[in-house]
């Protein structure tokens, strides 16, 4: 276990250690730097408002992240930018990333609401206890912007849904990696995922320090950066920072439940049960491994379970279910059911900080009510979905691996043509060539049940890779580096 000093706690942006559950209203401001000198001055003034890990705000929190273009716009020298991760520097929109993330066809970056422009530089995240507090904070920033050398590109509002649900009506955000350093009650021998998987400057799950930017000590005139723990004479610009992946995922709630109603009738299975099989949890959040036949609200936030002992065949929670792919726990090789298998999964974890956006399809958040509303023809055109945000130290090994190797990959875990039924991309080239449809298989005895031709229920509407710096790194980046 790593030791975090008071200095480190005051350096980490608080979003790393908490999701601000007590601040349900949120707003993301996507900004362009138009005048670097003025912008640096303004942002430096804002540094005192930046929420760090030692603070637990009850009214308002603010965090700041930057894109690689943002670093360029701040005139950070190219040799420093080169120290950042390749995927962050290349951005989400490369030919290869379009393939693996499924951002193709009508979901290609050209059609996004935001994220495809080169001019996205800065992300300011605001979290407040209610809308009036949030509006006040946003207003203050918006009024300051013209004189601050910043241009607002997009404002994205988020509001937590009742009962911690996501728009399809399922409880969300239950499974998070356990990081012993963030748990004040942790014992010395507490086992969890290595801190270095989520924060740069600490040892990762392989026992190494993840690649990160370091700078010549002479450049750090204010002496604000920590030293490099790997022993070089350089200062560590990455330490206590991490990468933030932001994707705006639009959810077609009416389409989802309408399709389930039809597919359920065809396959002779209750639509809510079919949807739960696809998710791997019931709407309450109860995992299918523990509650295979019907929802069990008393198990709603249960995260202490594994797959191999209880359900190796996928009879309870299908092998291709959403939660069994995005967090396979002990179900994959090497040696399913063992510590080794868990360790393998733990090298591909994400710290999730996403929030829903848009009004719920029905205030009840209940799938049964959703189905009734659809049957009555009460369908709206409201834009709703998830502002998916996750933190990780290695975007390729963590976020992209989960999204491609586990979620989008139709051949995951021995399957043939089953992408993730909820978030997986549809109609991949290899499948098209072999004439295969996008299916979902429910393992059963004597033989599996299958539903075919899954439409896309989730669409990417925007996205970018950001660097969430430590407070000291942000302070450093805002100083005049070209002298």
């Amino acid at each position: 276990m790593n030791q975090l000093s008071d200095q480190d706690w005051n350096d980490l942006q608080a979003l790393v250690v908490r999701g601000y559950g007590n601040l349900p209203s949120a707003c993301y401001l996507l900004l362009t730097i138009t005048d670097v000198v003025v912008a640096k001055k303004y942002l430096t003034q804002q540094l005192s408002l930046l929420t760090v890990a030692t603070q637990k705000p009850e009214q308002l929190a603010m965090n700041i992240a930057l894109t690689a273009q943002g670093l360029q716009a701040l005139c950070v020298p190219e040799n420093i930018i080169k120290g950042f991760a390749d995927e962050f520097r290349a951005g989400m929109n490369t030919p290869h990333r379009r393939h693996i993330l499924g951002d193709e066809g009508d979901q290609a970056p050209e059609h996004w609401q935001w994220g495809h422009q080169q001019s996205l530089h800065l992300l300011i995240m605001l979290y407040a206890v209610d809308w009036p507090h949030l509006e006040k904070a946003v207003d203050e920033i918006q009024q300051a912007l013209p004189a601050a050398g910043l241009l607002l590109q997009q404002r994205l509002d988020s509001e937590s849904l009742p009962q911690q649900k996501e728009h399809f009506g399922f409880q969300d955000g239950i499974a998070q990696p356990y990081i012993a350093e963030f748990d004040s009650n942790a014992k010395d021998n507490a086992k969890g995922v290595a801190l270095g998987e989520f924060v740069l400057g600490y040892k990762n799950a392989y026992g190494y320090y993840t690649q990160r930017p370091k700078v010549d000590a002479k450049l750090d005139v204010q002496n604000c950066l920590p030293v490099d723990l790997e022993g070089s004479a350089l200062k560590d610009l990455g330490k206590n920072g991490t990468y933030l992946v932001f994707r705006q995922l639009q959810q077609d709630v009416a389409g989802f439940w309408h399709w389930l109603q039809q597919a359920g009738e065809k396959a002779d299975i209750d639509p809510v049960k079919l949807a739960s099989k696809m998710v791997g949890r019931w709407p309450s959040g109860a995992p299918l491994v523990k509650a295979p036949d019907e929802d069990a609200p008393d198990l709603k936030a249960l995260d202490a379970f594994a797959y191999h002992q209880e359900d190796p065949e996928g009879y309870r929670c299908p092998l291709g279910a959403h939660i069994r792919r995005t967090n396979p726990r002990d179900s994959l090789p090497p040696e399913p059911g063992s510590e080794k298998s868990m360790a393998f999964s733990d090298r591909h974890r994400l710290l999730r900080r996403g929030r829903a956006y848009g009004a719920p399809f029905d205030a009840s958040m209940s799938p049964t009510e959703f189905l009734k509303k659809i049957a009555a023809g009460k369908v709206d055109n409201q834009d709703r979905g998830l502002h998916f945000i996750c933190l990780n130290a290695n975007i390729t090994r963590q976020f992209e691996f989960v999204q491609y190797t586990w979620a989008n990959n139709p051949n995951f875990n021995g399957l043939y043509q089953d992408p993730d039924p909820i978030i997986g991309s549809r109609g991949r080239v290899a499948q098209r060539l072999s004439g295969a449809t996008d299916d979902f298989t429910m393992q059963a005895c004597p033989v599996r049940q299958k539903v075919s031709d899954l439409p896309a229920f989730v669409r990417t509407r925007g996205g970018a890779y950001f660097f969430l710096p430590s407070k000291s790194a942000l302070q450093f980046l805002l100083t005049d580096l070209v002298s």
Partner: protein
Amino acid sequence: MDALQPLLNIPAFSVLEPLVSRLQKFNQQPQNPLTVRAELNLEQEAKLRETLKRISENVVRNQSLPFGLFKDSLHFARLLILPGADHPERYGSSLVLMANVDGSVHDFLSELVMKAGRGLDDVFGACEGYPEADRRNYATRLVFLTEKLIPAQAFYINTIGRGVKQIVQEDQLRQAIQVFLQQVDVQMLSSARELRKVVIAFIKKNPHLLWALAPAAQPSFWWKAKEQLRLVVLAFLGALVVTWFWPLLLAWLLVLQTKESKDQEERRRPPLLRLTQLRAPEDVYTHNQFSAVGYLKSGWVRKTTVKVALSVVHASLRHVFNKGNLAGVPFLGLEGVDTIHFARWVLIDDDRRLLFTSNYDGSLESYMVDFVDKVAWGLNLVFSNGQGYPATRWLVMDGARNEQKFKDFLGNHQLDTDVWYTPYGHLTAVNIANNAAIRQGLQGEMNERQAQQWLARL
């Protein structure tokens, strides 16, 4: 056996040809690696690149080398332009054709020349020594390609004996059963055994699926016996070396250890633009290609080490890891990798460089993660003899375990694969093995539990 080839050029020995050819076939494996390397003419390189680009736009059907023509004998194939060893001081770039074929390399070459002679001209016409336009015919083309064949020091076949026809057919079988199952009212059946019988009856009624009821073709009894004998002899020789010469081996390791402490690791990270370029064609199919080249560390100690290591690797791939699980040794706690279809190691340029290519499932990231997590020791054994490799201890420790340095090393050495062909781009190695087990399960009687396990494959 290839050593006998020059003899055949002497007229008096030509009567032996049929015998030698039978011996060659006997020594070969059911699947074999074809590697042709021909020196490029600098002036022709630009034109060749255009031709390769055109081929890669439609690998299956194109004017020059329509790889789809070889659907009964060809697994994976690739064409790449390999920069010369001292490029750009001395040009020396070459065109490399690699294929994983069923049957002998020579049989495939003659099929290739027969079916795509003119197409070969488009491609190999850019090479030094290719027959002049007016002298091009079946024989001259074949002689050229045969002369340019180079051996692979080690070669991995996911499952020895499983041909491309079988792979494609067995996938059609699975798909047909899947479609049929959608129409069966499972509720009406009392057991898994009964359902299995219904499936078998369905196949019996379909003339185009009848083949599935016979077991898949296997290498002959004599071939298997010979392979067993080969293994026994090699194991015996190995044991002999270890018992008699262990002090020598130990001394060798100590020498290596001192060398390891002085070797330089590569510090440079691959340029971002280069990585973007390399990644662009990847992850279109379920599996991908990987090609890389690097210099070996200088000195005879390293060269001998790499040759011995490759022989040991080859023997274990051929005789032990030949059923879909690479490097997995459960009782030693070593985890295997089940995502690689074919791989090969080829020493080139008077053993100055090592060329490595493979065909693997999933993304390069997941492939590298498998290396780092599971078989780092096996990679270290060979690749730590390459210049710039992440530092190892005792030949097999550390090295690839250093995730970032290892990934950077691969990025620095990866080559563009200009053309790549796969005949079953929607199937992983695990899928292929499962399909084979589905077919196998049509044979014989099963109890209820066995029938359930068989049905779980669908």
